[in-house]
């Protein structure tokens, strides 16, 4: 196995204690940092994504792979040149006003992060105004909103309406999810729907491409 295969394999297997040594070994051997990233770590993460979709990998393993990738990035980051790392996109995420359920949104954040998105998680019970202000400040590509209850879906509608009112926020892409959400509701409010965290990653990728 060559060193790039070993690095990719570390990511797939979640070998947090191994990856730093292997990345260092590749760099010591004169390899370009960008090559280590693209053909080692990112190749590994792509395999992780495929295996998860096929049902061969499970959520805790995917999260461990993402953490392993972070370990490798610690070494690589100072050496990478501007433009070597392309961010997939910026996302502002929130569970909407009146709703305190966190786990679904947290999971989507973690999966999006693993796919290379920069995440700004505003937490739970977030008002339309707080979301609008965060959009103004962070200038994200996407706003993601989660709700668990039929009543709090109304907060999603209010937020979308507020974002549409302002010229600086009206063009941000909107994703929604949660137990009462469905494609029809999303379309009605001018948003996009995904059923789970994995589909949310696919949707986010399609919205920024």
């Amino acid at each position: 196995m060559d060193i790039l295969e070993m690095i990719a394999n570390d990511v797939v297997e979640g070998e947090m204690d191994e990856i730093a040594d292997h990345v260092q070994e590749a760099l010591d051997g004169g390899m370009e940092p960008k090559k280590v990233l693209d053909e080692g770590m990112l190749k590994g993460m792509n395999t992780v994504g495929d295996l998860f979709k096929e049902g061969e990998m499970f959520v805790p393993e995917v999260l461990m792979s993402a953490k392993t990738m972070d370990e490798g990035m610690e070494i690589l980051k100072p050496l990478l040149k501007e433009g070597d790392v392309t961010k997939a996109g910026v996302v502002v995420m929130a569970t909407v006003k009146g709703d305190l359920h966190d786990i679904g949104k947290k999971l989507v954040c973690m999966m999006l992060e693993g796919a290379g998105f920069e995440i700004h998680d505003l937490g739970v019970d977030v008002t339309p105004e707080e979301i609008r202000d965060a959009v103004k400040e962070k200038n994200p590509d996407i706003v993601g909103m989660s709700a668990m209850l039929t009543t709090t879906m109304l907060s999603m509608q209010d937020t979308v309406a507020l974002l549409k009112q302002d010229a600086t926020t009206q063009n941000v892409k909107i994703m929604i999810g949660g137990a009462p959400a469905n494609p029809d509701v999303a379309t009605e409010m001018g948003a996009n729907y995904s059923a789970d965290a994995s589909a949310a990653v696919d949707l986010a990728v399609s919205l920024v491409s």
Partner: protein
Amino acid sequence: MERNIPNNVNFSVLSPEQIQKIHRASVTVLSEFGVKMDSARMREELQAAGAQICENDIVKVPEQLINKCLETVPKGVSLYSRDGEEIIKIGAENNIYFGAIIDVVNVLDHHTNKVRKMYREDVKNFAVLEDYLDSVSYTTPAGMFNGVDPRIASQIAFLDTCRYFTKAQSIVTAECSGFEDCLHVAQDFVGGKDKLAEKPFIMYYAEPISPFMHVDESVKRIIVCAENGIPITYMPYSMMGGTAPVTPVGALIQNNADVLMGLVMSQVIKPGASFIYGSMPTVFDMKTTVGSYGAPEFHMCVAASADLADFYGVPFYGSHCLSDAKTIDAQSVAEFEMSMMSTMMSKANLVHDGPFLDHANNITLIGLLLFDEMFYQTKAYVNGVDTSDEMIDLMLKTIKDVGPGGHYLEERSTLKNFKKIWYPKRFKRLMENPDESDLMDRLIAEVDHILETHVPKPITQEQEEVLASYEAEFMSRYQ
């Protein structure tokens, strides 16, 4: 007094030693680690009762306070029909009663076996069919149907359930204010707050957000119920590996601690307030991220939680006929049966939720008939073996009379006892079965027949006026 459904199979998931271990661990969690308590009023009440308030609204409850509250919590609960008849009586006999549900977001159309949105006319159909089935003792209007503003959907579902369902109700609302609306309706419906408290035909439901978040909204519900004499179920829904530790024992310790916290809150507000122990520790599917409704570990943990509730001597809120499948198919019926069997054998007292498909995203009228069939089927199972002296004597006499190579068809004991054996109403045991199953067609026809012919006992003119007046007020709110 004999139990309403005799259970002679001696089923328990947890041994007394295991119950003690889980109880001790839950006490450690509450007294040493603490839980998050959002409600300022509840923090004050708990502090006055001996709890310790720490940084970030963490409350630690000493064992002494838990024990004191376990002494005052009622060991049973009675619920009444809409018309004031005691139809649910949980006490020393440890009776078991089954509930159903009136509405969720989607309905599985019983003619097509395909999912569509649920609307108000469906609410009536579910109420009528559930009113008809003797196996259903109470139901749950949840206010998730479409076509009405979600802020008043629970209230409207409750009004229609009062109209078309004569038994007890376990109300679910997204917000406590929705329940307070229903509470006022119920009080006016029976003639006042005291009358409703004396013979409640409604109970309510609240849940912490796992792990250990006792949010203001949930605490408010406990307070409103304690102050109005309405029984409340406090039921954490946690997912092993996601919102609960990944092992069954970890989830049981966590849920048990959260339920004990609810119990303490209710007793601190009003010693003697009716409290029902609920617990749904399920599997967080690490492939799909679904909180499973069909996982065997889920139903095992629900039955284990019933053992814990039995240890504390408080009524337990179980779960039946739940599935992850979306339609009536081989998977959903297999999962219904497993949950039904587990809950019927367990120490549950009020068994809710079924028949739920697609992890609580849709309900089905056909499923109600399947539940009814499984109710009598599993009831026959838990009846167990009669080994009374009289029965042993009768059997020895019969065996002796018949002798080797004989038959029992003409024996008196056969004639006397064969009808004690359960015969299915809808499932068939034909010697020669048809090549294609006609079960679904027969179930559809039965649903249609019941909906066409069953007329729930009507409410009085005065009661309809109460409901109509509230309905007009609710409908005017968000026009």
